[in-house]
């Protein structure tokens, strides 16, 4: 930083004198005192960007039980700390106000959403799976054993974890549901 009194250190003066405003001459006492909020995080989790399949490393900073920042992980040999506009905005993905946090239910022919607690919803869904499976069970098809249901189908996105896909396929298959599909086909 330039020598002299506070006026001569004022960024505007320094830039008018010809110093490069994109470098040190942009700094003021206030900006020097600013600290990144990542420094104050309680914890940092090593994560991976959830958008495209490049798999950029992310560092997820948490302060007071909330995500305070998501940064690129400089250690990643794939991304070297960089993130694209989507990856850079992913803190908003996990904190934006449009995220739903409650179970909603629309009854047949209903015109509005209703509230339902999670436990009730889980029981109702389990009941429907068991009932529909039983009602649509096929032991044979064209004289061949098939032991399946065509009454229950599933479609998953491709941001599911491997472990999630594994349990899904395992459960559906054991129930005889075969129309199990994923974005990976589409």
């Amino acid at each position, binding site marked *: 930083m330039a020598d002299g009194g506070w006026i001569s250190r004022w960024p505007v003066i320094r830039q008018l004198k010809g110093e490069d405003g994109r470098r040190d001459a942009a700094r003021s006492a206030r900006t020097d005192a600013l600290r990144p909020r990542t420094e104050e995080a309680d914890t940092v989790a090593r994560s991976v960007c959830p958008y*495209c399949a490049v798999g950029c490393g992310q560092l997820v900073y948490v302060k007071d039980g909330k995500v305070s920042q998501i940064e690129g992980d400089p250690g990643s040999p*794939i991304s070297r700390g960089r993130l694209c*506009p*989507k990856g850079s905005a992913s803190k908003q993905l996990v904190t934006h106000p449009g995220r739903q946090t409650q179970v909603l239910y629309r009854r047949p022919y209903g015109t509005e959403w209703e509230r339902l607690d999670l436990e009730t919803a889980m029981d109702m869904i389990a009941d429907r799976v068991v009932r529909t499976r039983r009602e649509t069970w096929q032991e044979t098809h064209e004289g061949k054993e098939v032991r399946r249901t065509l009454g229950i189908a599933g479609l998953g996105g491709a941001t599911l974890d*491997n472990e999630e896909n594994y349990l899904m396929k395992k459960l559906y298959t054991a129930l005889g549901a*075969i129309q*199990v599909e*994923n974005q990976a086909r589409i």
Partner: protein
Amino acid sequence: MAECHPVGFQWVMEARLRGAKVFHIDPRFSRTSAVADRYLPIRAGSDIVLLGALINHVLSNELYFREYVLAYTNAATLVSKRFQDTEDLDGLFSGFDPETHRYDPSSWAYEGDEESEAEAAGADSYGARGAGASARPPSDPTLRHPRCVLQILKRHFARYTPEMVDELCGIPPEDFAELAEAITANSGRERTTAWVYSVGWTQHSVGAQYIRASAILQLLLGNMGRPGGGIMALRGHASIQGSTDIPTLFNLLPGYIAMPHAHRHEDLAHYLEMEGADTGYWGNRRSYLVSLLKSWWGDAATEDNDFCFDYLPRLTGDHGHYATVMGQIDGTVKGYFVIGENPAVGSANGKAQRLGLANLDWLVVRDLTLVETATFWKDGPELETGELRTGDIATEVFFLPAASHVEKEGTFTNTQRLLQWREKALDPLGECRSDLWFYYHLGKRIRQRLGDDEIDRPARELTWDYPEMGEHRDPSAEAVLREINGTGPDGRALSSYRELAPDGSTRCGCWIYCGVYADEVNQAARREPGSRQSWVAPEWGWAWPANRRILYNRASADPDGRPWSERKAYIWWDAEKGEWTGHDVPDFDLRKPPDYEPPDGARAEAALAGTDPFIMQSDGKGWLYVPSGLSDGPLPAHYEPHESPVLNTLYGRQSNPARRTYDRPENPYNPPGSARFPYVFTTSRLTEHHTAGAMSRSLAYLAELQPELFCEVSPQLAAEVGLVNGGWATIVTSRTAIEARVLVTERVRPLRVQRQIIHQVVMPYHWGYGGGGLVTGDIVNDLLPVVLDPNVYIQESKAGTCAVLPGRRPRGQALLDLIEEYRHG
């Protein structure tokens, strides 16, 4: 790539700084075009003409890498006398049945294999790997026999000329020559060329054959299994590769093992006999499948009961996504789970999707926001047109909020097959839960409701015990990953798929992932910084299989095991140590010497020679010609998209004769050759948004950066139609009409095709009517028909036809009237 995989694209820019020449071939001028050395606009749907002409150029000028081709591909193999090419049958291969629109591929076989079991492949029969062929078929190493693969290739591709590229792709001969010169000059011992593609190649009614064409070119040029070579599928979602490896796909079990088929498979022994050859690594398929069955049914799976093979439900045909939607409309599908997916916006022919949703008994949607698939009954476009009424829709809808990627732990598999473990940063809010939680607890509840009935036995006896953690009793994702990895007779984690046994003594949930938990350590969680390891970076995450970063890397050395050149050294044979070594994990038997010759009767990997790098193939060769496993031909042939304004001048067949169509009222097609739909239409993505928009439209930063749906048109098209920059355009197909802002730009170049000017309309498809989006817009995928590639049942999203009108689209009944007018004139 710069547009949709920007951070990956930094490596292309690095390569360019080091002298690589970058060509961008795309109907759309994007951020990639802006920084490429050469941008070649191409007519959507014509890429096989271009690739075929490059193959022809390489073959007719003898520019192929002869030593590589001779040793590592099936160029010398002789094909059956019964095989007839598209050259003989004007665009058909032998074996076509015009009644069923399917091929009987038995005549495509290698000589001597004709009598073996061959059935028209397709997603419902062979899964991803294809059937087998002989390990040592008859061959002619001089490559002169008229029925050897190389000669068949020469004849097949002879009509793919630069003139045809000019006529069908709109790429002039001088541009073609520059591309052909660049790829051949940059292939061989000292140099390699890579091809990178995305859904612009796959989403066609002949999509699998686009990739095949690229594979032929890369094999001929010796660019497979070598550093800087390859064919890179840039996949669009964080774990779409994982969703294929551990598939939630109807035709596959984990690790690309085909689901059993009612008409093809009786019991385990019969299944194993029918599903491929005994040579190459698929020869071990009993070990892979039995270990999976043991993993799922544990002690209930015994040798006496075929390891519960009968517990697997049977397929009888196409049970893919679009067949499922038609089943919903027809009333056979009653209940539907949609998990982190938004078919009401993201799938082709959105109206058919929503009509299907409206005809269910019950629907479960799990997502971060209220996506359109959850709210179609409240705000879908069919309500505005009067085709649906909320009060008439009987579907019971459950919306369950999901945990985000930072609120759960688990692995993604990225586009290079790399598994990366994500640590959990914090608990999810409110009633948000992971999908792992949902399926585990749903499974528990369902099992509690089952009785003694025989049909309940597979679910009752399923292994379903995972440690529960925390306040929400989340199942342990690490325990699931460890089950995927597999365990030995001692209960310890296995370290390699080579340890899997055929007798039921090992368990493994996905054989290609075996080793991800080697030494009881979560290898996917490894995070040695890139700066502290080699350029291959083997200690960051874990790549399947066996942490190999380049597949088939035996091909990076010559037949004697020496690097093709110092510059391109990667894996080589160390004669002193008697093993393969190099920068990566060898994708080969570590101690199999280059001069190994298999004894008679050898099976599995032992049946492959020391010079056979393509170890998953039954003959260890890269297949220039595919004798079985494809449903629309052993070689790629150019067919026009189902909807095209251009005549196929290569053959007397306009479109892929084996493509799958759905002739139903919900899915009308533009009439062939109709002058009412004169423009080529294709869809695309933008950096600032993600697929159907559920993960981007609701983010303020991204919504502000790209606030509105638009169509890019050339000044010539704007003048022809009367479009004004910043104004509105209406795009019409037989499915619907949508409106978009107009961006008039010279980036879009009209193409001269068959002596006429073809205009292309390119639209990003990220918008929808709701979904918690801060920005909304019409659904571009609503314009698309459902017409499918016959191998993998992917839809043709990337090439169709449309009409363009100035101004906004009509509303209500008037919209339906407009579509009727266009369909029937």
